[in-house]
């Protein structure tokens, strides 16, 4: 009896990424979330293009700043009153698809402009916090001992500070503005990621493949970045998507309180704030941004949970 046959796996080859995609695909809610997420992204992108004044002569395609007092507080799907509004100020298609606010500004245009703000604030702030979190969490998890202790106590201190009030304080002292918001949210939101990454590193450190890498004589840096980090990112991705949702809500809250992006730039929170006074007269001013925030946050959360399941190695197929 000879073993002359060389062995190999029988099934078609799949990268771990493809495996994860397969699992994600089966989760309908997560897929719906992802679809909405992509739609939202495209809409925001379209919004920037469409609401910007690219050409000073022609103005924006859908100008969110045009004030038409004649047409204020019109409900959605109202035709523009052509007699009172000059031609240059008319909305696209002549219809206010989502109505107008107290200054006659087209709500749809403002929503589109605000979408971009929500998106950038979300991504940049979360990107910053994830970068900080991976760095600190990786250090704490890999080196352990006093490095770990110092970093984790720092995390504990930061967690004691109520984030929202810290942001308000900073913004009140140094003024608002989109960049400041992104920065402040970013540097106050990294604690969760740090914990996740640290936990993953702690458990990865014990895995035999890390010991194998050390036995091969690989440098610490190579081990951290090539071996451990790619395996530690799954919970980070999940918390990042959920973090984006949270940041959008946060920005809306800040704008609602008047601490957000300065006028006349629209954000969803601002539209909510403006609509507060007219809740019963013009409910669409509240429901439109509110509903939009709900959908976006919900879809991000569902997508994030789907990612968590997709990256869960226990759901994977295994060889015999």
């Amino acid at each position, binding site marked *: *009896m*000879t*073993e002359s*046959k060389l*062995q190999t796996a*029988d099934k078609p080859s799949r990268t771990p990424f493809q495996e994860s995609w*397969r699992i994600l695909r089966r989760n309908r809610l997560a897929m719906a979330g992802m679809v909405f997420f992509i739609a939202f992204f495209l809409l925001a992108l379209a919004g920037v293009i469409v609401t910007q004044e690219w050409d000073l002569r022609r103005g924006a395609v859908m100008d969110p700043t045009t004030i038409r007092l004649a047409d204020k507080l019109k409900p959605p799907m109202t035709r523009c009153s052509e007699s009172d509004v000059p031609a240059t100020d008319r909305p696209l298609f002549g219809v206010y698809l989502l109505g107008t606010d107290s200054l006659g500004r087209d709500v749809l245009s403002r929503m589109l402009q605000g979408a971009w703000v929500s998106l950038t604030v979300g991504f940049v702030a979360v990107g910053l916090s994830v970068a900080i979190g991976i760095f600190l969490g990786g250090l704490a998890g890999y080196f352990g001992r006093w490095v770990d202790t110092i970093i984790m106590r720092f995390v504990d201190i930061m967690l004691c500070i109520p984030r929202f009030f810290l942001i308000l304080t900073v913004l009140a002292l140094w003024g608002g503005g989109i960049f400041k918001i992104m920065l402040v949210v970013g540097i106050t939101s990294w604690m969760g990621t740090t914990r996740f990454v640290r936990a993953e590193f702690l458990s990865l450190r014990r895995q035999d493949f890390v010991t194998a890498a050390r036995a091969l004589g690989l440098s610490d840096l190579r081990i951290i970045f090539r071996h451990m980090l790619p395996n530690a990112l799954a919970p980070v991705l999940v918390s990042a998507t959920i973090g984006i949702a949270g940041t959008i809500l946060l920005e809306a809250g800040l704008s609602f309180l008047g601490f957000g992006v300065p006028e006349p730039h629209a954000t969803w929170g601002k539209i909510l704030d403006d609509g507060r006074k007219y809740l019963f007269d013009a409910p669409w001013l509240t429901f439109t941004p509110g509903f939009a925030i709900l959908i976006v946050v919900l879809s991000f959360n569902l997508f994030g949970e789907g990612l968590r399941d997709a990256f869960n190695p226990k759901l994977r197929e295994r060889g*015999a």
Partner: protein
Amino acid sequence: MGGTGKLLDVRDIRVTFRSSDGPPARAVEGVSFALDAGETLAIVGESGCGKSVTGLALMRLIPSPPGIIETGQAILEGTDLLTLPEHQMRDIRGGKIAMIFQEPMTSLNPVFKVGHQIAEAIHVHQDISKEDARTRVIDLLGRVQIPSPAERFESYPHQLSGGMRQRVMIAMALACNSRVLIADEPTTALDVTIQAQILELLEGLRDQTGMGLILITHDLAVVAGTANRVAVMYAGRIVEQSPVAELFAKPLHPYTRGLLKSIPSRNVGQAKLPVIPGTVPEASNKPAACHFHPRCPYARDICRQEVPELRKLSPGRLTRCWALGDWLDEE
């Protein structure tokens, strides 16, 4: 050896696991055997052969999607376990028929004291006061040879070693006077010296209570030391059934023969171990007809075309092979 009549009569169990994408996995394909009171039947096989699934099926513990017990009967003292409604099965599970597993740490709840957990098992099946239950538990802990049982009653699982936890699991099975105990790899996770103690304990208890013991394992040496009869499984089917001495002396199935030959302790002084080439097939992708034929040195055309049935060759010896007779002469 027991022999007061069949305690457990298992007939043609088939268990399949459906998968959302891909073919179903036929984990158990027509397994039948009988267990007498006071005897140990070992079900031996490598991973993926379906031995654990068989044990879980008898306990009706197969997770129901995705697993289904498609057919079969398991008759214990007149009742078919596989067709009982769930609430009646719950009365029997842990009572008349009990199971212990490989990893006692995960079988015990870490937040309750072990005494409490055993007592809970008693309370589920019997109406008994707390004090009486406690006395019984301490008595049981003594019977499984746990030192200082009264103190151990108050221990948490993490305070006990692997061997002791396994004894606690055995105590739970004894607590309700089980007639059949299924032990699924009970000593695989234990050190050799502890393994020997546990196996002796199981044998002793079996003799004392007259219960039937189904020992599921991959370790042929364990089987040799403690089983009365052996059923060898491969890829979901029983390929050989035999009293233990005859199985080791003269295996009838090429798979059994290959397994025995590859054990290092039977090859003392040889440089190279004889091996069975290839690997165990996956449950969802088994070779047609005889599942073993791709790896079998005696395979012939009929092996690829028709499933061999389990045939009786001599009293108590069954085997599932077409090439029989011929290769035995070659030996």
